[in-house]
């Protein structure tokens, strides 16, 4: 069963598409829970929802899977609001698709009951200000958490606030690496007819005679149905459509041909037939919604005739570097200048993500930089990245820039090292990050924050931490923040092991070529011995088992 769960601070969409393909489901049952203006006789202006996001997402999924064991459905989408939800707006949406209505209605009912019992979401009543009519404007929305937050807090904010971009149809040739947004089912049985698996002779499966008359010859592309009598055989090639049912194929190696007759030297037990629907049956899901399309998935879609699958669009990404000390890599830096490496780094990291990237440099003077921007053009950008220059505190430049562009700053610091001054902003569906200028901080922030946002825009849940043992001791001064430590994951010994890299400051570049993972070092943890199992995040392009 396909499950999509989302916690969102924004109003729910006007409509949601069923999590299944046209033709696969017979029932689509939807529910919206709307905030009423009164609760137990008390006026209500809004309800404020608080969640333990990571656990809520897991628990909702767990509940759905457990209920679906008794009421099997094809797909469920759950969207739950967080923060203030005014009277009249929906706090929760549930959409269930199934073959028949009974199981969808049963699953919906049971899920709603259990949602209220075990999913860590809490609501508080917000009372209207005395003398005012309850309305959207009478509510003081909770202040955005614009200060420092924990790494988990940052991940939860990004995960819940970045919304999947609307899906678009794309030709197979342009769909590689994009996320499929509909489950594609087999339109017909595959193979579509019983086929011979051998070069040989088709005879009745019960016919154990020694001699046969060859009555026809079928090549791979031939289609000539006919019935066979005892003692008759049809010459077939590998892949040939068999002329009728109830046959088996004798391999040509076990036959002696004598003109239009054959003599069977040996009867096998195997039928040597690939039966119709053996590979897949009509209506069976071929590729599930949410899959990132690789070559194999695209080939399967092609075989099924699905030539314009519904996929995530390529997000439009704008990247601005700032900092007057930067010169382009082609130039020789004068004293006090350095070559810009962040443009190259970001471009490289985005190679693994289907997107359309535009890069520019902004001058350090804010008002001059502002005049360099084209707000109309920026309004079409899905993801905006601003790299702070090393001499410009990212806070001093990126934040006012993002705010002037209409972004709400969700957080401006994360308790993680390197990469603390990371800024995350939201403007409708559009996402922005202010990245701290140092290259290593860029590398780290890209992998835990930007990659997660890109995955969410594409409709995925995002990268997760994996576990592997350390190949060597990791030793450092204890740090009150968590650290995402660059490391190299290798398989030479047959099992994955993590080699922590050497780095001294967030400006370090030299460890980047070999870094393919980030180890999550807990706060205040000075030493991790070799062999300790640690959490790590795969970096761009790393292939995980």
């Amino acid at each position, binding site marked *: 069963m396909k499950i999509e769960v989302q916690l969102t601070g924004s109003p729910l969409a006007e409509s949601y598409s069923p999590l299944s393909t046209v033709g696969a489901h017979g029932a689509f049952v939807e529910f919206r829970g709307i905030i009423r203006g009164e609760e137990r006789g008390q006026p209500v202006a809004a309800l404020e929802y608080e969640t333990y996001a990571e656990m809520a997402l*897991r628990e909702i999924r767990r509940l759905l899977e457990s209920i679906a064991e008794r009421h099997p459905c094809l797909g469920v989408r759950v969207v739950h609001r967080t923060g203030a939800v005014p009277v009249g707006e929906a706090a929760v949406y549930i959409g269930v698709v199934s073959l028949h209505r009974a199981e969808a209605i049963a699953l919906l009912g049971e899920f709603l009951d259990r949602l209220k*019992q075990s999913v*860590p979401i809490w609501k508080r009543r917000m009372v209207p200000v005395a003398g005012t009519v309850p309305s959207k404007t009478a509510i003081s929305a909770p202040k955005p958490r614009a200060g420092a937050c924990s790494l*988990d807090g940052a991940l939860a904010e990004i995960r819940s606030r970045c919304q999947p971009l609307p899906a678009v149809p794309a030709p197979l040739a342009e769909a590689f690496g994009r996320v499929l947004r509909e489950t594609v089912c087999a339109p017909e049985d595959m193979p579509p007819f019983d086929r011979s698996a051998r070069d040989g002779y088709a005879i009745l499966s019960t016919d154990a005679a020694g001699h046969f008359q060859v009555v026809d010859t079928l090549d791979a592309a031939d289609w000539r149905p006919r019935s066979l009598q005892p003692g008759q055989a049809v010459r077939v090639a590998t892949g040939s459509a068999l002329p009728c049912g109830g046959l088996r194929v004798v391999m040509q190696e076990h036959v002696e041909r004598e003109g239009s007759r054959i003599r069977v030297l040996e009867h096998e037990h195997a039928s040597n037939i690939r039966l119709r629907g053996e590979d897949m049956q009509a209506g069976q899901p071929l590729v599930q919604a949410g899959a990132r399309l690789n070559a194999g998935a695209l080939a399967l879609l092609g075989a099924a005739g699905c030539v314009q699958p519904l996929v995530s669009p390529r997000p439009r990404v704008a990247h601005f570097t700032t900092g007057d000390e930067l010169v382009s890599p082609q130039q020789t830096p004068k004293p006090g200048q350095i070559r810009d490496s962040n443009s190259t780094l970001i471009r490289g990291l985005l190679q693994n993500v289907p997107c359309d990237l535009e890069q520019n440099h902004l001058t350090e003077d804010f008002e001059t930089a502002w005049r360099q921007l084209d707000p109309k053009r920026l309004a079409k950008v899905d993801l905006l990245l601003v790299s702070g220059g090393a001499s410009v505190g990212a806070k001093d430049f990126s934040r006012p820039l993002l705010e002037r562009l209409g972004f709400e700053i969700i957080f401006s610091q994360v308790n993680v090292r390197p990469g603390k001054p990371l800024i995350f902003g939201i403007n409708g569906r559009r996402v922005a990050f202010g990245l701290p200028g140092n290259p290593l901080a860029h590398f780290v922030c890209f992998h835990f924050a930007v990659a997660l946002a890109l995955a969410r825009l594409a409709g995925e849940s995002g990268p997760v931490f994996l576990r592997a043992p350390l190949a060597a001791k990791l030793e450092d001064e204890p740090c009150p923040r968590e650290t995402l430590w660059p490391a190299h994951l290798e398989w030479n010994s047959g099992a994955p092991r993590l080699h922590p890299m050497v780095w001294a400051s967030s400006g370090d570049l030299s460890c980047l070529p070999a870094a393919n993972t980030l180890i999550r070092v*807990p706060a205040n943890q000075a030493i991790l011995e070799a062999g300790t199992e640690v959490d790590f995040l795969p970096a761009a392009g790393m292939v995980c088992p």
Partner: protein
Amino acid sequence: MNSHSLMRVLFFAQLKDVTGCEAVEIFSSSPLDRDGLWAALLEKFPGLAAHRPAVRLARNCEYAAPDALFAHGDEVALLPPVSGG
């Protein structure tokens, strides 16, 4: 390897009002069972005592079993009765 246990404890909804914070870190020389964890928390936040009967504990984003041990690196959460939907 550090021989002490360090775990993070999160508070939600009305429990945040009681403790005045969203999270604390607890050090312990060994893993804690339910009672040990509560003892450590109540020492710091006596106001939680009144809520204890209704609070459920989660360990690493899952409801904790009655005999669960809370150990180094765990994210523990105190969950008052939920009210989603």
